[in-house]
């Protein structure tokens, strides 16, 4: 077992131990924080597929996070108001069922990622960063100026959506559900990285010309990776909306994109548990620093700056040592 695997196991254990302790000690706030960590980590795991594996620096993942959130908000608001979403040509009702909402969130964000990806992947480098940022902002302003679903004020959902066989109103059960989703996606993402597709994608990041020489077109690989990445982040958005029972345009804002990116980089780019470690560290810092000073973001900024300048490779990279790559 190498060091990174041991660290991953420790993180996974810590992730499970903390909420167990919180349940025992009856600390519902800690359970909510742990749920938030799991959901934001999931968003980061999504971005890590594009960013870490594919080398695609997307600064617009809030777009997918927001679409997932609004998928939940729109479906659930129609269900809670008993108004159909569409009556013609066929009747579509809203729903309060999580599996259906997740499916819609994943499909909608995958579709958006496909459209955005087709356009953005024509560019590379800084242009890619900027164009993904611009698409995110485009949706942000759209969400603000579209009054049907709350506009700038967002949408409140009064009761958390249901999952068959679980009582999602119980924080511990909702947490368990989010953990389950996170670990399933982590497992799938580790399989993806080791699959032929993942290896080719890594190849496209390391040396595009060599990949072309062996007859693989990088554009398609990247597009597929971008779509998967967007879909996972979209799923996280739906869960996040359910955690807060609220969606608003801020889910689309570029600060959100920046934060998702921070989770990945703080934990370690292209590391399986990078986003998990990053999101946990971020939330813990937010919580602790927020308790010390109202201006905690100054210290957050200084920490981030320190990580970028002096601890390259993020938390896991610093602890586990450099990754052996064959460039």
């Amino acid at each position, binding site marked *: 077992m190498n060091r990174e695997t041991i660290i991953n196991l420790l993180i996974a254990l810590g992730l499970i131990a903390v909420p167990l302790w919180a349940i025992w000690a009856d600390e519902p706030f800690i359970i909510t924080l742990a749920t938030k960590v799991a959901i934001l980590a999931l968003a980061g795991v999504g971005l890590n597929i594009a960013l870490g594996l594919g080398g695609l620096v997307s600064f617009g993942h809030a777009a997918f996070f927001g679409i997932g959130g609004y998928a939940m908000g729109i479906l659930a608001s129609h269900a809670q108001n008993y108004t159909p979403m569409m009556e013609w040509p066929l009747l579509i009702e809203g729903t309060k069922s999580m599996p259906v909402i997740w499916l819609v969130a994943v499909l909608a964000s995958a579709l958006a990622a496909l459209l955005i990806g087709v356009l953005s992947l024509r560019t590379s480098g800084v242009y890619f960063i900027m*164009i993904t940022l611009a698409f995110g*902002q485009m949706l942000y302003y759209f969400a603000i100026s579209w009054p049907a679903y709350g506009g700038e004020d967002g949408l409140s959902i009064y009761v958390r959506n249901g999952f068959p066989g679980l009582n999602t109103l119980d924080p511990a059960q909702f947490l368990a559900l989010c953990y389950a989703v996170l670990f399933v996606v982590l497992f799938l993402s580790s399989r993806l990285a080791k699959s032929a597709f993942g290896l080719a994608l890594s190849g496209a990041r390391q040396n595009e010309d060599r990949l072309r020489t062996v007859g693989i077109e990088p554009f398609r690989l990247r597009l597929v990776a971008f779509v998967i990445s967007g879909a996972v982040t979209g799923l996280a958005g739906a869960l996040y909306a359910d955690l807060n029972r609220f969606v608003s345009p801020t889910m689309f804002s570029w600060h959100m994109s920046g934060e998702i990116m921070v989770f990945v980089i703080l934990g370690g780019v292209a590391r399986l548990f990078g986003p998990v470690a990053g999101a946990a560290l971020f939330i813990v810092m937010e919580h602790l620093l927020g308790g010390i000073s109202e201006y905690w973001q100054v210290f957050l900024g200084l920490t981030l*700056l320190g990580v970028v300048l002096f601890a390259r490779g993020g938390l896991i990279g610093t602890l586990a040592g450099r990754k052996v790559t064959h460039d």
Partner: protein
Amino acid sequence: MSALLLIEQILNGLQSGVMLFLMAAGLTLVFGVMGLINLAHGSLYMVGAFAAAGAAAATGSFVVALVAALAAAAAAGALIEMLVIRRLYERDHLDQVLATFALILILSEGTRWLFGSFPLYLDVPDWLSGSVTLPGGIQYPLYRLAIIVVGLAVAAGLFGLISRTRLGIRIRAGEADREMIAALGVDISKLYTMVFALGAALAGLAGALVGAIQSVQVGMGEPVLILAFVVIVIGGIGSIKGAFIGALLVGLTETLGGVLLPQLFGLFMDPSAATTVGASLASMAIYILMAVVLIWRPSGLFGVRA
């Protein structure tokens, strides 16, 4: 819609375009010469506006306020370059994005700490308030007209600086081949600090000038930063000419889109729906413009292909 109103809106678009140019010029210079993406450029805009508001409150003079904005932003820029940015030139874009994102957090919260959360106000001086009558009988605010003139003058000055002076020659040489000009005896790190401070000063000036129209508050730089990114991507990153054309295009699209699109939809929709759809589309218009430009020319209008 009357022609008078249209001309007024075109002038408004021009005004926001030249201010965007002041922001975009610094960004594109820093990217062209140093290869650095600076997300914290909007914070320098904010620094300029706050310095101007502070100086105006202390002295009551608008000219002193503008000088303070230029000086404070240039100083902040030089300091940031020497402390942080300098270490990022050799890094990849991901590190640059993250480090400058961290700088935004520090500068924004730091400013909130110093000045509080309430917006400050910077007043238009008496000698620039009121409106003028333009040929054709259009009443237009004098201050906005002055901003257009100042913006165009700075743009002309910048073109002159880049194309005619020794510093300009060095900047262009730095864009072309940084090892070579270092070998020729130019102190490259000093040059980089100067370019960064120059870009910061332009952003600070824009912040102060716009601060007199809007309120001066924390976070005011961020929407402008995003627009400035759109501008340099449309114009082609690294190109001052591209930044100028891009800024005017974005300024005009944003202003005219907001006025014309709801009216356009009003021709075939009922008024309230037209306002909704038109306003939504207008707020997305510049991003659609950018997407169209990039699909047509992936490196922007005046960009050099990498």
